[in-house]
């Protein structure tokens, strides 16, 4: 058992407790006897038992396998920054506009990940953004009406 498993089990267990509590408040009657609440309750119990088993396994087998390492490695930091960039991108799409934001996102990330000349990154970003915009908006009829710009 790895330490990550314990975090995962803990997460699931908390979720199961919350959902279990919520399903107790659900209307459970109906003409059949099996209402809306029994099934989720059952699943919550399964998850709880499973998580407890994970905890027991972990503590019985000892925690020796844990590698001591820094909070985030350099590679992981890059992922964290990407996630933040994408969150920013989502907001920008909503308030500024799809095409412009996508262009900016692509340009920023391509420049960040690769070491191309800036105009090459820009051309790549432009090409990709226009292709995706064209394919989805014109061929597949997806509406990209969000922000003030297009």
């Amino acid at each position: 058992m790895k330490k990550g498993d314990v975090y995962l089990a803990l997460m699931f267990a908390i979720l199961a407790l919350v959902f279990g509590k919520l399903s107790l408040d659900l209307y459970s009657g109906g003409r059949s006897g099996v209402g809306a609440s029994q099934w989720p309750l059952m699943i919550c119990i399964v998850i709880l038992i499973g998580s407890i088993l994970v905890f027991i396994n972990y503590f019985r087998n000892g925690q020796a396998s844990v590698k001591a390492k820094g909070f985030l490695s350099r590679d992981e930091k890059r992922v964290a920054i990407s996630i933040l960039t994408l969150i920013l991108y989502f907001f920008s799409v909503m308030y500024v506009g799809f095409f412009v934001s996508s262009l900016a996102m692509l340009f920023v990330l391509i420049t960040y990940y690769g070491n191309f000349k800036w105009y090459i990154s820009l051309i790549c970003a432009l090409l990709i953004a226009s292709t995706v915009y064209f394919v989805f908006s014109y061929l597949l009829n997806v509406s990209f009406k969000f922000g003030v710009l297009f």
Partner: protein
Amino acid sequence: MIIDALLLALQPSVLLYMFLGVAGGIFIGCLPGLTTTMGVALVLPLTFGMDATHSILLLIGVYVGAVYGGSISAILLNTPGTPASAATAIDGHAMAARGEAGRALGISTISSFLGGIISCFFLILISPYLAKFALKFSAPEFFMLAVFGLCIISSISGRSVLIGLLCGAFGVLIATIGIDDISGVARFTFGNMNLFSGVNFIPVMIGLFAMSQAFVSVEDMMKKQSDAKKITQALPHKEDWRVIFKNSAIFGSLGTFIGSVPGVGADIASFIAYGQSKGLSKNGDKYGTGVPEAISAPEAANNGVTGGALIPMLTLGVPGDAVAAIMIGALTVQGLQPGPLLFQNNTAIVYAIFIGFFVANIFMVCIGLSSVRLFTRVLSVPKAVLTPIIFLLCFVGSYSLANNFFDVIVMFVFGVFGYFLKKIGVSPSPIILGLILGPMAESNFRRALLMSRGEYDTFFSTGISWFFFVLIVASLLFPVFKKLTKKK
């Protein structure tokens, strides 16, 4: 009659439409987020101006192409384009990561083709019987089928079955969000309207597979791109052919059968095929490391479904899956009533559909094999460019499902969660399986009890239920048995 049908189906313009349909379907299937159903729905308005043959065969072309196309991105990028290829991604990508992308694509293409052809034969020869048999399925049988499907979790959960089961249960729990089918009560929606129809599993899948995979490649960005990307061959190895033929025969038939049961689709079929082939194969323990069986079985099964799904539509006029529902719409617009009368009144068009279905599969294998090199070219795109493209496609794909921003948020949350799972070495497939099968299990469990007025013996009242019960027990005991015999 056959001559009439041949004349209808083999008109040059029909062939051209079908070819374009298959190519377009492969393209749509490749893109994460654009599902088979969506692809067919997008093409539907174009068919309103055509005659019946052109219209239905174009849609069939898109259908066949899209179900196959999903496996290309699953193998190359570990990003299943459609849920039907989620099972293929497990071993397909493992093989591609070894540098054998061409081989993996070859296996998947040939298996898809054989699966499609087998289902075509079933469709032509025994569709009335299959349809009659499929009608025997009622709530208890569907429940048993769903539980049987959930047993597959043990074979797709990677290093720890316990964690796999937990993930599967998590998927089932997430699937209970939304308005309950049976009682009409809103569960766990927190008053948010976007949750009323539940968490859509397509964005979850895009997040767990595509987005998280893109994060992993961000992490590996500075590692040198392996040189193994040079494709040495675009066809399966010699020793693969036996495996392909065997698996395609078994799982193509299984897929056809599953497809003919209304309400059960290609996603479920491919997972069941993956799980069962693991039990049957000598290399069962090596599953997950890129074995040919594990690519061939789900691919044969999901293309087997395509023919199967047409069976209830043509024989009974009821859709076998969401795609068939759209095709029924397309036929009615043409003034044709799908169902038993279609065989009597429009025999030529029914045979034209059979022939067209056959031809579409041939187009699929031709396009597939001839462009393996083109597809694998994707791998030579620098990661620094490819990864942002995948981000963009994940975003656009999940948005375009319902033109709803909420799906994008779901996708993103599960993307981050999926990255965490990958970091700790947990497979996300059980979550998807739980999401797909959970609602089927629950609603049929409760529907069965409603129909039997609360008698639990309804679950053991028919032969089919017993059959599935035996399968469930067998698939649970088989690994234990295998372990015991190995120890000797």
